[in-house]
């Protein structure tokens, strides 16, 4: 079995896995980072979103071996120690989550949006979330959370 090494949330980590192992399985099972979730098997739900070399990626669409040597950020790496990131605060303040299962993917995906568009319109947010499914919130408070995060992160006013 090949050994795969990557920098995850700022720490060098490595582990053995089969060639066919998906990045999401490697993160969850080999590295024990269970914050990244699996909600489908057709790459549609977005529960597995992480950042690979700074870009939002559905980690079920990538083999772990393809991410060898990459810089990965998962939901566990978003906060700065005990200090929550503004987007995490925004999700909590705006009730942007219910069961919490889609939440890690939503947050990782929304961070990517705000990186490229600091001041997105409601329509742009909704469009961006096309690849992230949530069955609980009806998206209402997720959109509100992202709008609030944009303000808190210095984008929208």
């Amino acid at each position, binding site marked *: 079995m090949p050994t795969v090494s990557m920098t995850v949330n700022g720490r060098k980590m490595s582990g053995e896995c*089969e060639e*066919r*192992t998906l990045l999401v399985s490697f993160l*969850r*099972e080999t590295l024990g*980072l*269970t*914050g*990244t*979730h*699996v*909600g*489908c*098997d*057709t790459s*549609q*739900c977005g*529960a597995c979103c992480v950042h690979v070399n700074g870009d939002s990626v559905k980690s079920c669409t990538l083999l772990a071996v393809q991410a060898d040597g990459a810089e990965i950020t*998962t*939901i*566990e790496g*978003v*906060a700065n120690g005990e200090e*929550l990131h503004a987007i*995490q605060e925004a*999700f*909590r*303040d705006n*009730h942007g*989550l*219910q*069961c*919490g*299962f*889609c*939440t*890690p993917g939503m*947050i990782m995906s929304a961070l990517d949006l705000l990186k490229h568009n600091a001041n997105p319109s*409601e*329509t742009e*947010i*909704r*469009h961006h*979330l*096309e690849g*992230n*499914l*949530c*069955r*609980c*919130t*009806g*998206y*209402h*408070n*997720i*959109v*509100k959370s992202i709008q609030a995060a944009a303000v808190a992160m210095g984008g929208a006013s």
Partner: protein
Amino acid sequence: MNENGIGARVRRKEDKRFITGRGNYTDDINRHGQTHAVFLRSPHAHARIVSIDTKAAMAAGAVAVLTGKDVADAGINGLPCGWLIHNKDGSPMKEPGHPVIALDRVRHVGDIVAMVIAESKNQAKDLAELVEVDYEVLPAAVNAVEALKPGAPQVHDDVEGNLCYDWHLGEKDPVDAAFAQAAHVTKLDVYNNRLAPNAMEPRAAIGEYDRATGEHTLYTTSQNPHVIRLLMGAFVLGLPEHKLRVVSPDVGGGFGSKIFHYAEEAAVTWAAKVVGRPIKWNSDRSEAFISDAQGRDHHTHAELALDNDGKFLGFRVSTTANMGAYLSTFSTSIPTYLYATLLAGLYATPAIYAEVKAAFTNTVPVDAYRGAGRPEACFVVESIVDKAARETGRDPAALRKLNLIPASAMPYQTPVALQYDSGDFVKNIDDALKVIDYDGFPARCDASKKKGMLRGIGLSSYIEACGIAPSTVAGALGARAGLYESAEVRVHPTGSVTVFTGSHSHGQGHETTFAQIVCERLGVPIENVEVVHGDTGKIPFGMGTYGSRSLAVGGVALHNSLEKVIAKGRKIAAHMMEAAETDVEFKDGHYRVAGTDKELAFGAIALQAYVPHNFPHDELEPGLDETSFYDPKNFTYPNGCHICEVEIDPDTGVTRIERFVAVDDFGNIINPMIVEGQVHGGIMQGIGQALCEDCIYDESGQLLTGSYMDYCMPKADMVPFYEVGTNVVPCTHNALGVKGAGEAGTIGAAAAVINAIRHATGVGDIQMPATSQRVWQAINASAAQAAE
């Protein structure tokens, strides 16, 4: 008011772990030495199993391959159904066996044929491909109406004609008499499309057996771990409860689909002992589509009789409900006691008669999905009322208001078994009409027309029976168990509090709402309250969460336990302050002796409760830990009015939801933020049913929409911000005055959307889901008809 007490928009206590990736869902749990199971499932809707050969899989390294024969040899029973329905003639429904693993016949695509256990999931998947199953494919019954016709393929040999039951409610003669006098009769045929619940967390289960203690543990994605323990322990595996622990940790949404006791739970629990190692199973999404119980699937014909003034005289409904291949835990109650009883809707229709036939088919079992029967009832009632308005040239809002049960008539006994306790239905409609500016609709419609677009507005007024359930009523209606709830309040020596509740949260935020009730009553800070749920090893027996029952039943149990704590504390305070108990009052977290300045904080009482020196032993025990079991007197009746406004592009048939307004009466509200969230999510699920979601089976019983490639899940860009408000009329028969908010959105929304589309297009019989294709075809068919 306590700043974190009842009525406050408290941020959720549970959120921190979810937003930091530290939730603890079943699939996040790994047990030492665990193996992985994959279930080999039938690719056929209906087939005889001629043979199963597991030798190759075993030779290639499977830990075990277990089949229906192993299950039968182990003396394991089938999965039970929790609700007994009687036929019109009084005879009991047909209840065919539902084996944990199929023995000699498979009855739906996804029926379990073998359980393959290996060192990893990938290996188990590979080995499952080596299991050779020889099938003799049989013709399949798929559509429920067709399944009841003579000559249809037989799903179970011992269920003649595939009829599970033929049931009725209400009195037929008065309804026939009403129709005989009617000035107008409106007729309606609707199909309530089958849905896949699709909680974002797929189901998962881990079974573990401790040889030293003889204890079994099941971790499972369940809404009601105690119910699973009871059903699995007592009925399926024959395990005593003190040796069986069921844990449902964080659960990623349920919407009904995680109520039921599923075969995989029993299989991993049993097999963990067989192989002597823990076994983990997690469902793939495609597997969920063919193994999670689905919802709805009703074919209904309804007729409404009106007099000359538009008053409803009588209503008759005949429904065929699809049960799927086997009876899931609550399946039989959905099209009967959770459906037909709601057919009065909000209207004072004096005579109602409903007939329901339930059919077995070679499809995935059907059971409760958010709303469970009540959305189906609401859709029938609100569709026919709208149609009647169109046919008789009346405004749909006006026709509704003419027939509403007035607030002054409460409590109101309907002709279909329920007694509504409270509600102001007229105000719901008036408020909602005002928010959406109903009077301004013609101008908005003109503006749309100028752009070449169609515009429509649709109403839906709903009522639901929640707070499931008063046990005497439920028992009389066929439930095999009472449906009360429990709560234990354990006050610790330093005054912090742990609540153990039989309710289960899988997104509803009980850890916050229940803590708010404690704050309000005991005056303790919210940080000092912990709510524990989901582990039969910790909590008292409880019935779990479904049917919008957690607050209305579990919350009231909590309230009652808090009252007992306060009463016990008063005894302790009276003893400590040397006062008569009757002179001691409790307010804002302090016991005070009336008319004096003597007072003691709740924390001081808690400490004394655990370190007493001189309690009078005959009158006062140490400790401050109280439990209540609350069995409600009646259902609660949340109600409301939803209005949807749509714009449709006639060239493409694409429907855009422009506005969605909901005014709901949930009784008193503990946390408005959480309640709004429940409504938002519910509305989206109703819109999903109305516009895009559909489980489509082909004639051979294959599910054509079995993945997210084909089953259209509602997405963020399908909707605007919802406009939700409340019209609080407290429930009259529980101590908190609460009614429940979990299902309302889903119950009301679909009919509002479809009525808006019918209004916009002028096509009265558009069915769900109103996909762009269906809408386009309807517009063009009616244009072609008009041209003829």
